[in-house]
């Protein structure tokens, strides 16, 4: 790399500037500006061509066992989830997509794109497809399986046609918009809609490779039927199974309808908008526990037991708590309330040494925290405080009841989910749980109280100084022996615990950056207005700090999502574990022995799609919130 190749340009300027005065000038400016640049261009083109050809050869090699991925798609996604309960999974996916569509519509995320750029992308993709037709191993009898569908076996011509169509569409788009090609006039959500339609078309039309055994000239692709058949295994091309096509189509249609509906409803009045947004936020918060604990888990309720064992106790707890909070939040109570709250906190600690169900200890601690917050958030808000307490009591009661109930989903292994769904559960739960812990640690580390600071600093540095895999091993090797008898934590919970504690330390460092970026004047102003420390943190410093570090927080979310793959080392059946260990070891009903490269590449693509989407959303959020502009 020579110095001549370096020019300091901003990212925005790096876009492939379409020729303002013709392609020759563009080529000269962007590829052959200096002799050294020209040499690099030639070398790069050779590298790209070889890499592209290598990729095509790899992907379309008849030895590739892509049927290992297509046949095991369900295993990769949900592991051994029973087939006749699959509607629960589809319903969950549908709910998430529906919420996503509604939120996208209400928050108007999306924005506009320039026809010129879309045209350039289409033409680029078209060109790449045509090039693929030229370079690829098609039309050659010794590399294409005999029963491959037309678009592979008849080879290049289809690639050329598709590529040419794309290029024509791209060019037409630019020509049609003419003068306005440089303005942002095409809604990105419209493009997403086109992509959805295309995706559906692919599911309905395009064949995928599946394994089969040939008996009497008939290809048996059903795993159950093929199980005992002693016939050579072949690969045939079939449409995607109906069990997948129809749900996806339904979900896509419903999502589009939801999007259009909320797009029409939204913007009518700001009060209604705010109400809808609030409802959506609540639904998002509720969605995860409801989906994972209730819908997917199919708990076998025993309502009588629920009412007697859980209901009564929590009813009393709710009533006593409400009374206490009402009394504490009265302006006249004053500092006596603080003493009571402090006493409650002591009691909560003391409860560690008194044998009682774990949940009561937790409730005592929660009540103490509510009581501590009462003087700050009481007054006019005391009704809100009591409502919050009652909701907390209800949720805890409900979750305890749910967790106490056996899962109706009966699968081998200790957890009812596996594969990609387990990966998502791990990532989401750890992120949600580590967030409050990270914020508390960050507050502790920036606090003026030295012992808090020292404790938090020690925690953060110790956790960050040692790799995550070590903490996972600690959780799996040592935690079981350190816990009191009677408390057993399953593998998934242990992994969530380790990742939560680990991620909290990193989150804390990010949040600390935000807290330190807040000018001292903000704190002085809130103090001068008579706010208590808690009020200052909740209303003034934290909202500003979090807003300032959103990009870093999303980065942390991405890192944690990637880190969930480490649980495969401690033997959880997450996405990567199934892709790397289970499928390449399958021999029945179809053999996929040694198909590890295919499954790993599929896993890589799925991970990539998730993280890449996250990072793009982060960029949009950053722009929307105008981080750095204030």
């Amino acid at each position: 790399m020579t110095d001549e190749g370096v020019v300091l340009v901003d990212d925005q300027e790096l876009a492939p500037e379409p020729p303002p005065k013709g392609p020759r000038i563009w080529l000269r400016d962007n590829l052959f500006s200096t002799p050294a640049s020209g040499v690099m261009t030639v070398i790069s083109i050779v590298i790209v061509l070889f890499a592209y050809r290598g990729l095509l050869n790899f992907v379309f090699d008849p030895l590739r066992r892509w049927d290992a991925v297509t046949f095991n798609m369900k295993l990769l996604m949900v592991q051994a989830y029973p087939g006749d309960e699959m509607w629960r999974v589809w319903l969950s996916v549908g709910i998430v997509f529906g919420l996503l569509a509604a939120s996208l519509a209400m928050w108007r995320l999306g924005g506009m794109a320039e026809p010129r750029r879309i045209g350039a992308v289409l033409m680029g993709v078209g060109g790449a497809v045509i090039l693929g037709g030229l370079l690829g191993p098609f039309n050659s009898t010794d590399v294409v399986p005999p029963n491959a569908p037309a678009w592979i076996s008849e080879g290049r011509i289809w690639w050329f046609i598709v590529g040419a169509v794309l290029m024509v569409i791209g060019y037409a788009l630019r020509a049609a918009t003419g003068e306005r090609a440089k303005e942002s006039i095409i809604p990105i959500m419209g493009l997403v809609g086109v992509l959805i339609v295309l995706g559906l078309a692919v599911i309905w039309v395009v064949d995928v490779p599946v394994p089969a055994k040939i008996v009497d000239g008939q290809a048996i692709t059903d795993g159950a039927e093929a199980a005992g058949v002693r016939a050579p295994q072949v690969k045939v091309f079939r449409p995607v199974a109906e069990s997948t096509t129809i749900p996806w189509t339904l979900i896509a249609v419903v999502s589009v309808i939801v999007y259009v509906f909320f797009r029409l409803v939204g913007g009518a009045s700001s009060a209604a908008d705010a109400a809808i947004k609030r409802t959506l936020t609540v639904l998002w918060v509720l969605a995860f526990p409801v989906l994972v604990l209730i819908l997917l888990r199919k708990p076998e309720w025993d309502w009588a037991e629920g009412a007697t064992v859980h209901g009564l106790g929590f009813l009393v707890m709710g009533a006593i708590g409400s009374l206490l909070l009402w009394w504490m939040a009265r302006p006249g109570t004053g500092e006596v309330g603080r003493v009571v709250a402090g006493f409650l906190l002591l009691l909560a600690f003391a409860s560690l040494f008194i044998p009682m169900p774990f949940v009561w200890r937790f409730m005592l601690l929660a009540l103490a925290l509510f009581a501590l917050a009462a003087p700050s958030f009481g007054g006019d808000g005391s009704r809100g405080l009591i409502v919050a307490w009652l909701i907390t009591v209800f949720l805890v009661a409900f979750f305890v009841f749910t967790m106490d109930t056996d899962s109706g989903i009966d699968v081998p292994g200790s957890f009812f989910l596996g594969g990609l769904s387990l990966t998502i559960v791990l990532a989401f739960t750890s992120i949600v749980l580590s967030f409050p812990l990270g914020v508390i640690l960050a507050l502790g580390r920036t606090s003026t109280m030295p012992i808090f600071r020292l404790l938090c600093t020690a925690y953060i540095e110790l956790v960050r100084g040692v790799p995550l895999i070590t903490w996972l091993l600690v959780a799996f090797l040592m935690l079981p022996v350190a816990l009191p008898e009677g408390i057993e934590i399953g593998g998934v919970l242990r992994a969530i615990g380790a990742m939560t504690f680990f991620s909290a330390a990193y989150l804390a460092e990010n949040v600390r950056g935000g807290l330190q970026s807040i000018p001292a004047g903000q704190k002085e102003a809130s103090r001068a207005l008579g706010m208590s420390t808690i009020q200052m943190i909740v209303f003034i410093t934290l909202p500003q700090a979090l807003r300032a570090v959103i990009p870093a927080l999303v980065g942390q979310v991405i890192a944690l999502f990637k880190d969930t793959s480490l649980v495969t080392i401690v033997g959880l059946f997450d996405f990567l574990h199934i892709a790397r260990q289970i499928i390449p070891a399958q021999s029945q009903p179809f053999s996929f022995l040694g198909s590890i490269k295919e499954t790993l590449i599929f896993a890589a693509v799925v991970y990539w799609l998730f993280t890449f989407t996250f990072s793009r959303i982060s960029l949009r959020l950053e722009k929307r919130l105008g981080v750095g502009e204030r």
Partner: protein
Amino acid sequence: MTVEVRQHQRTPLWRNAAVLKWGAQILVLIAVIVVFVTLAQTASSNFTASNVSFGWDWLSDPTGVQIREGIDTSPDSGVRALTVGMMNTLRVAISGIIVATILGTIIGIARLSSNWIVNRIAVVYIETIRNIPLLVQIFFWSALAIGLPELTADDVGEYWFKASNKGFAFAWIFPDGGFWPWLIFVVVGIAVGRWVSKRRMRYQEETGNPGHGGRYAFAVVVLFAVVGWFAWPIFGWLEPVFDWVSDLIRDLPAVIVPIVVAIAAIAGAALWIRNFFESRRTPAGFGKMTDDDWFRVIFVGFSGIVVALLAFVVSGFEIRTISGEQLTVAELILDGIANFFGWLAGSFSTENYNTVVEGQRSGGPLVFEKAAVILRGTAEIPQYGETGMVLTVPFFAIWTGVTLYTAAFIAEIVRGGILAVPKGQTEAAQAVGLKRSQYLRQIILPQAFRIILPPLGNQYLNLFKNTSLGLAVAYADIVAVGTTIINQTGQSLPVVSVWMAFFLTGSLIISAIVNYFNRRMQLVER
């Protein structure tokens, strides 16, 4: 409105801000301690129930652990096994850091290139690598290498480069008999070269004529290297000197080891703390010590004392060597140092001067070796021979994984650092007539480097910690070896504490090095 002044009222304790502040802190501290003590008690009682007690005997006991690669594949004690693991971790980390830095810088600069296609290649690399979990990548590299053809009897022979499912072997340059004496020549050559270069620079400043300092310095180093290649036996007189030192050390009493270590540890910690305080001192008195600072000081002081105490405890351990002797650790260390000097003496020996012994390396300073495939054992299994550089599949997978992964992040840091240099700097440099290569080297890169350094240090830390993923592809790093020891002995707590000590120390050392350069850069600025 009356003014009631309760001049000498006493503030009740529960309303006193200071009391509340400290009360809360002490309460939390007690709660944390209580939780830890409870956990520890439960753990110890659980272990007593299952007849396992934690201790350090496994360090010296023979473990029977077999390690796939490293300086010793069948270590005779736990401590030896862990040492092998540490060396393997460091091997990946150090070479990975060097290569990732070079690769990352190249890609980062390519990411800023005005050449569209070079630019796009860099973007595709960064966006692909960054967004796929490292573990997936490591598995992929491992699968790729295992998928290579097997070695067969037909492959026996010498190779420049050979890839197989046993890993990669290629020709490499190794130090040989005259290497150390020759290195003295080279080092002296570099020192002289620097001096010459400085003189030429002064000449250029005084006269305005081009000084060609770099060329002169290069010539001097080459001269010394060439002369040293033939003249290295003149250092042969060092052999008896080192032999004498070796014998001297062998005769020392063993107790001197812990004493020296303890003094060094405490003195080192004290010196570090003093320098640290010095560095925080401003003209107005002590500068503000942040908690991090206090944490570091306490950590260093505490570790100094712990190391000093451990020195005495550990040196009493008895370890059985391969030859079956029972030696205390202190004796072993003395023995090791004596052996080191013995080795030095051997290194300076002129015995092999310019003679090529059959089956051994040549007598020069460096030797070039091709890789070889040989048939080993009575079963005549084709394997890589001893010559050339051999990378096993696990090493290749973990090394390629962490290096490429970190390089992608480094590339983004380099790009960000260069972009963060204000545009005015480029314009000013152009205005005074500097050429592009000149202003890049003299103006932009030095400024960018200061911005790049702190996040770069973070990436080094990440790379170091990520080497622990070697466990997943059975690379014998410290975590993998430790896991094996835990499985065999059940000593989870001690092994985990060794891991933590190792990683924390490593992180601290990397931070220290990065901070040192960071400080130097800041000084240059003023």
